[in-house]
């Protein structure tokens, strides 16, 4: 069953429970310099015409439908899981060339300093296959992150699929902090 990650920026507060859950699930060794696959942002963006937008975001691999990283990798590390449609990888042959990072519009691939190999979010596809939600989704207390089957997504009428939720700055201007000052 194909799955879709959704994200609702109006529910997020960058509490980063998702990052902790990802770290817990994937045994990310922060001490060795490894980085969590998911990244949250609590960032203030100033608009040219005044006002500040306080962005709270959580991003990881968007599991692009036509994932450019797959074609970019010279050794074929990255592929699609046929079931979930998630972008998964086997980095045995990874040469650490960062071609995948150059292809990815979201900065999702990470490099372990120790072996120089790429790692990234695999959508917890094994959990999904076993009837569970991805670890980060499970940890989101506020319903900002979710992972739905394609069918659930269509029925939900949501427009918050991660891989389409990109050009939003405009919409959000009205919420800029300037309104209260």
């Amino acid at each position, binding site marked *: 069953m194909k799955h879709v990650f959704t994200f609702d*920026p109006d529910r997020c507060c960058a509490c980063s429970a998702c990052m902790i859950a990802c770290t817990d699930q994937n045994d990310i060794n922060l001490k060795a310099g490894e980085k969590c696959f998911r*990244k949250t*942002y609590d*960032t203030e*963006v100033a*608009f*040219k015409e005044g006002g500040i*937008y306080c*962005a709270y*975001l959580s*991003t990881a691999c968007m599991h692009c439908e036509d994932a*450019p990283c797959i*074609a*970019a990798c*010279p*050794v*074929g590390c990255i592929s699609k899981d046929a079931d979930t449609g998630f972008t998964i990888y086997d980095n045995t*042959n990874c*040469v*650490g*060339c*960062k*071609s*995948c*990072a*150059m*292809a*990815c*519009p*979201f*900065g999702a*691939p*990470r*490099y372990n300093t120790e072996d120089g190999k790429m790692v990234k979010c695999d959508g917890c596809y094994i959990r999904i296959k076993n009837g569970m939600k991805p670890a980060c989704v499970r940890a989101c207390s506020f319903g900002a992150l979710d992972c739905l089957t394609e069918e659930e997504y269509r029925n939900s009428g949501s427009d918050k699929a991660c891989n389409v939720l*990109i*050009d*939003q*700055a*405009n919409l*959000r201007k009205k919420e800029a902090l300037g309104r209260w000052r």
Partner: protein
Amino acid sequence: MNKIAIIGFGAAGYCAAAEARKWDPDALIDVYTDAGRGPYNPMLTTYYVKGAIDYEAMFPFGSLDEIEERLGLCIHRNTAVTGLDAETKTICLPDGTKAAYDNILISTGASAFVPPIQGGDLPGVFKMRTAEDGVYLKKLLDGGKIRSGLVVGASWVGIKVVEDLVEQGVDCTLVDGADWAFSIAAFRQTAQRVHRDLEKKGIKLAFGQMLSHIEQEEDGRITAVMKNGRRFTADIIAICIGVRPNVAFLKDSGIAVNRGVLVDERMGTNLPGIYGAGDCCEAYEIQSGERKNIGLWFNARKQGEVAGANMAGKRKAFGGNALLNLAHYLDYDFISIGDVASCRDEDQVYEYEDDRYYIRAVRGEKLKCINMIGTGESNGVVKSLFIKYFENNQAEMDMASICHLKENGFPDSFIDFIGRDQH
């Protein structure tokens, strides 16, 4: 039944075959390759040399037999196509026979260019493109007798050969005819930082050195003699001064060829039913709106896919093609996005440097070129912003990209510079 011929079986050829098979299970797909082994990835040769991967890993799609079986192809091994009659969509084979098809893909790639100079065939002189080139260098280096190496050509291939040599402890000199490294993509200032980085690793550099010929020394070493008379002596010499698309066999075929085969968005040539993809072609580039030969693995795969789909009757287009150069070498990475040659003295320049990053960007009326060193994990974000900018410069820069760049230590002034006429 749709009869498809694919000439040349690299990444472009393979992806075209796979995609055509996906959409047309019944098509007859004939593949012509001048090699006897599966499609390989030229950029992996130097990784094979340094032992980062096995020999087999250079062939990411498997062996010819496996592929033939998996995709239901008919592969003609060791069969270099010698000519093409576009009118009748017929190809000529080395044994003089001909075969006609409904659709033909030209995916013959490019070859490393070695000028016809005296001494160019001396033992120890080599190039770096094919799996065989990789095997050759690896044997030499594994032999343990190589003490010094000279690399002619400070560009993407040359720098990878330098990396192989340095990691083996071989004393290494890098020379180039231009005034600085990566001259077709790097600003002089960017190159200065590159030079500093390379020299820190003990690499000797010399620029403005045009290769004249190569001489054999009595002690068995070889010497590259420059047009200015300077001599560089080493155990081995790599010649990495560029590639040439393999299009000679298309002479008089009626197919429009510049440096490479000229194609449209659907990878079609000027003649119906004939397509081009990969290093042998020139596709539309987003910044200039003109056709350019941009030899990248990703492009070869994507263009092959697009050609394959179109040959199977699907409409698919190749877009978002920008001038890109990425070099990952010796703990550094350098990326150039856009056309450095289009930059003028009167343009606005943005420059930023800290211990991690070097960034230099230029804009005239529009954004022109961005050079970055050390920004590896963020390269895709910047590249994609650059492409979006040219696709629609009214579009807002998206929040996720802004956040990513800010959090990864890109200064606000840079975000401002590249997003200037956006908001």
